[in-house]
């Protein structure tokens, strides 16, 4: 999906740094997802270097850890753009013109779903429901919810010219 945008150079943290980040979760029942969220919080993605570290700590095969990471839409294998825009594609937003709005935003930014603008400023991702179904079309920009969006509103939020 990212063929036109070079992925920013992914930093590769040392095993010890990764262990420090996930150690607080060792006592949890089912600690892997909390660990992966913590890693992504720190590095913006789940670096490949985390796989053997987690496998070792949790006594799992590397393939199992990889299998978990790749199962979930949230976990990235490379960093996203500086800002992440999620636009809802689900039915309630479609009922109020969400599909057209999403396409207009993608066209204006010149990217496809999951794409990052060439300057690395914005990554656009689909999301299937933000629970804002009575005030759609809805989006989330860097974790902040926005209701009743149109392409101009999103452009204004992103600070890009219309």
């Amino acid at each position, binding site marked *: 999906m990212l063929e036109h945008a070079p992925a920013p150079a992914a930093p590769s943290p040392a095993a010890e740094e990764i262990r420090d980040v996930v150690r607080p979760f060792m006592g949890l029942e089912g600690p892997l997802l909390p660990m992966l969220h913590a890693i992504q919080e720190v590095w913006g993605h789940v670096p490949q270097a985390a796989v053997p570290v987690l496998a070792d700590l949790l006594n799992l095969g590397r393939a199992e850890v990889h299998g978990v990471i790749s199962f979930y839409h949230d976990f990235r294998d490379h960093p996203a753009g500086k800002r992440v825009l999620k636009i809802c594609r689900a039915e309630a937003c479609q009922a109020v013109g969400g599909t057209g709005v999403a396409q207009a935003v993608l066209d204006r930014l010149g990217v496809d779903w999951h794409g990052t603008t060439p300057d690395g400023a914005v990554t656009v991702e689909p999301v299937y429901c933000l629970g804002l179904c009575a005030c759609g079309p*809805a989006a989330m920009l860097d974790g*902040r919810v926005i209701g009743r969006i149109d392409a101009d509103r999103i452009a204004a939020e992103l600070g890009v010219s219309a």
Partner: protein
Amino acid sequence: MKIWVPMDSAAKALGADDVARAIAREAAVRGLDVQIIRNGTRGMIWLEPLVEVDAGEGRIGYGAVTPADVPALLDGRLNSLGPVDMLDWMRRQTRLTFARCGVIDPLDLDDYQAHGGLAGLRRAIAMSQAEIVKEVFDSGLRGRGGAGFPTGIKWRTVSDAVADQKYIVCNADEGDSGTFADRMIMEGDPFTLIEGMAIAGLGVGATRGYVYLRSEYPDAIRVMEAAVVIARQRGMLGPDVLGSGRAFDMQIRTGAGAYVCGEETSLLNSLEGKRGTVRAKPPLPALEGFMGKPTVVNNVISLATVPVIFEKGAQHYADFGLGRSRGTVTLQIAGNVRHGGLFETAFGMTLGEVVNDIGGGTLSGHPVKAVQVGGPLGAYMPVSKFDTPMGYEEFDQKGGLIGHAGLVVFDDTADMLQMARFAMEFCAVESCGKCTPCRIGAVRGVETIDRIANGDPGAAALLTDLCETMKDGSLCALGGFTPYPVMSALTQFPDDFATHKEAAE
């Protein structure tokens, strides 16, 4: 003077934070003594941000308020909606589960208790395990996540199981489009969910609980985590729940963007740190659930309804409703609708009343074409079925399902072939991959609908056959129920499928 500005996501998405800041700024400039309370939403989303002002004469509503309205609001010059409790939308409801939502400060445990909170838990503490389970059974409460399984039977199974550890797992992976009741109650009245889980723990002998909360709800995660800390500090959770000598504690866990994790066995795998694939049943999670131990898996609304059942008694709850659907249904009215939001009422109102009378028809002003009830796996109901009463069995008889009670309204511009295609596409994107009818069937479904669109005369029969296979052969509701929206679109709106055919010919 007290001023309430909701901190619910929907209100924030419509500018509530800016309004709250503007009120604080303007009040400071004027030297006014104003207490700003960030409450949940009352559920009237078309009026958000709905600001309430109490200057000594009760809570007067204003909405939708913009930051520019704030000087007039503080001058008393802004047109009001009148007392919020007297609004038609509020008066027509039976608010049991959502009684406190939008009323109290969500993170003020004293405010919670002043509005009936903890009364249910205190009553449960004085009861035996068997009495607690019987109370839930007698209330007639059924799983509000969609399956409608009697909650009391599930609790009894876990209660009767012998194990060194049992769990309460709350399914807060509310991924269905058109549903937001879970999010609303977690953001607006989090203690009611915690109280419901604590009662469940006492009832089945479980000492640990988890809320599996989807990552798409960062605001709800923040509120729930804060509420758990407060509940622990105040002795509502911990080794000695409210001095009962019995233990119950819980954690909030964040999902990772997989829709299928709303299915209970997939959720349990995810909670254990595995791929969120579906488990075959049996064994039932009630006997071998989280970590292989007996586990109650209930939806947010089911658990959040437990406190009021114990506060007011099972009979009080069971006295509302229709047929085998007892109590209230928390309708979420969404999509292309004039008055969207949350409306809690006894089961039994017809679909048409909900859409036209409560919801006020479409937002666009065009005629209603279809209403998808029960999320992405629910059937598209045509206007001709608007006499269907809101009830589990009643919807089943009309080829639909209530699900989590979300209703998405579409006007006459909706293309039902495209909606059917989207249902298959969504299933393909979100399939866990464990069973073939879902994993492969959804992909073939998209292709087959494209063939219909291109005028292939044999494709509709093939799609029907494929849907039969998915329905009968899938392990869980994702593959098993995707045929509901697809087949309802095909059979109820044949023109949308025929037009494409003719256009191609």
